[in-house]
């Protein structure tokens, strides 16, 4: 159990430190010219999911993809280089922040809402056809379920009995729009439950809960070849896209943001680790310091990397 906890904490710090580095340089240095959706405050979801999945399981996600990419085994330095548009980036600088995709890390992203949900179903279809016991996980926000393609994908996956985890990362907002103007008042997971479709909800800011619940669900999916949906309740601290806080913009209150920041998944988890004497404060600080240093180094390395050459513009179109 203790190794699991250490891994969860390490994963969350990896995301947090990488993204705090983005916050530090994004507007000031103008070197990351790519609209960037931060997961600060939502780290427990990706950390728990990636640890609950096997290495060869695949993740398909959307615009807010940093956390899943970094925890699924994506390359840390290539991540920074991608944001800086350099040739050493994940896609050589072509894809930017919202399309983080690396088949060797089994992670795929696209920022068109819902676009990757059926792709996850297709991956699961191939796993089933090949008789593999792999699982495909689609991660999406609370707005993506409003797209028709979500319902179509669930229907297909249930009908064909496919090993798909539908993971809804519910942070209560779509850009600046609260759930209440977009969906009925019922809970997402209850509304989406059906006789043939098991759904559940978990505290998305409790890394261990997320991990334990998803581990159980994923093994059920793997064994029974039936898709399930898990709703993770969480909250984004910063603006929808970009590095700033935005509680002065009128769509959500400072009290609401502060309330959720008090529920910060890292704060909660470290408090628990200390209380249960799983880790000391020094060990925790050392974990954070290590990722902070790696983030600083990765950014410098990115800036020292070459730009993609103009001659490469037309390569790999077909």
């Amino acid at each position: 159990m203790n190794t699991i906890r250490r891994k969860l904490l390490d994963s969350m710090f990896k995301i947090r430190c990488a993204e705090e580095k983005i916050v530090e340089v994004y507007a000031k240095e103008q070197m990351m010219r790519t609209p960037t959706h931060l997961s600060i405050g939502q780290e427990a979801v990706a950390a728990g999911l990636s640890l609950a999945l096997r290495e060869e399981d695949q993740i398909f996600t959307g615009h807010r993809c940093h956390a899943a990419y970094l925890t699924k085994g994506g390359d840390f330095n290539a991540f920074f280089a991608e944001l800086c548009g350099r040739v050493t980036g994940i896609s050589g600088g072509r894809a930017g922040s919202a399309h983080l995709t690396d088949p060797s890390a089994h992670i795929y992203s696209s920022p068109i809402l819902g676009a990757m949900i059926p792709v996850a179903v297709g991956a699961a279809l191939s796993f089933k056809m090949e008789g593999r016991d792999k699982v495909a996980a689609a991660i999406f926000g609370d707005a993506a379920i409003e797209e028709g393609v979500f319902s179509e994908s669930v229907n297909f996956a249930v009908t064909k009995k496919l090993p798909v985890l539908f993971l809804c990362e519910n942070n209560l907002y779509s850009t600046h729009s609260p759930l209440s103007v977009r969906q009925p008042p019922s809970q997402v997971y209850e509304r989406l439950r059906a006789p043939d479709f098991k759904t559940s909800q978990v505290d998305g800011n409790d890394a261990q809960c997320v991990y334990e619940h998803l581990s159980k669900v994923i093994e059920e999916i793997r064994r029974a070849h039936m898709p399930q949906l898990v709703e993770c309740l969480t909250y984004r601290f910063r603006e929808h896209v970009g590095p700033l806080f935005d509680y002065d913009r009128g769509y959500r209150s400072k009290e609401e943001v502060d309330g959720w920041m008090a529920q910060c998944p890292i704060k909660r988890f470290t408090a628990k680790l200390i209380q249960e004497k799983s880790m000391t404060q020094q060990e925790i600080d050392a974990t954070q310091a290590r990722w902070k240093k790696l983030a600083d180094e990765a950014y410098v390395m990115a800036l020292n990397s070459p730009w993609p050459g103009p001659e490469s513009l037309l390569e790999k179109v077909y």
Partner: protein
Amino acid sequence: MDRRISYAQAISEALVQGMEHDPNVFIFGLGVDDYKGIFGTTREAFLKFGGTRVFDTPASENALTGIAIGAALNKKRPVLVHARNDFMFLALDQMINNAAKWKYTYAGKSTVPIVVRGIIGKGWGQGPTHSQSLQSVLAHFPGLIVAMPANACDVKGIILQSLKSDAPVVILEHRSLYDLQCHVPPERFTVPFGRARIARAGTDVTVAAVSWMAVQALKAADELSKVGISVEVIDPVTVQPLDEQTIVRSVRKTGRLIAADTSWLRCSFASEVAAIAAEKAFDYLKSPVKRIAWPECPCPVSKALEEEFYPTHEDIVRAVYELMDRKDKHVFTEKVTDTFVGPY
């Protein structure tokens, strides 16, 4: 009196005036009522008319379009807004299989006058899925009006025309135009569909350029005037219907044509203009037609590649030199400078 307002302000003003004039007009779409108000274009309407006539929606582009059609069928005048026109890809079924065919198929007994606004993104790493420009997709299908106004005055007039029209209208608004100002009459006025604007008169070369490229063409014309080349810039304003006559008349006069687009070459507006010239002004052409459009690849994020990707006024100047058979190199007085401070 010269009253200069920006493109974004002109959109806002047109929507407010249209809503004042016709209580059936309403605006909906993702984020139309938020504090940013689609780059400031729907904010005033929301503050003035409130949440029953300007309202937020779920992210359901195809359904929203069908919902607009159903409302329009019953005398409403919906304006559906997409923060990027790329999101219209999800709505093409309703736009093309339903809206575009409605009046004709049902013999004109009912009409579905919806207005769909979509913004074309550019620069600062908008990337492959947030920078596209859908005019050739949309203009291909009879029954949809496709407007791409290139200045504040035209966008206001086009919106007000759309709110009077019987036909479904798509307005593609280039984000780079949003801060550009020009004189815009304060009153409610319309700009007709299918009438090109001669943005600058000239005698040596015709540049037919759409949206952001019309701005680039004017810049190129300035440069070229300094070396004694006179460029006529034609901005079609609407891509469908397309004012063939104005283009043909200009090409017959100048004998040279460049068509500049904000999208890819294949099956494009630029190709359409070239075809029209070949059919209707062939004998007047002194040199082959040139098309300026995007290179044959998706738009990459990296600044290094993005700069390579987008054509600018410099490409138009170079193309004109070629058509005029000038072997010397142009000395640009104005360089392409990116003063934009991100994020987008």
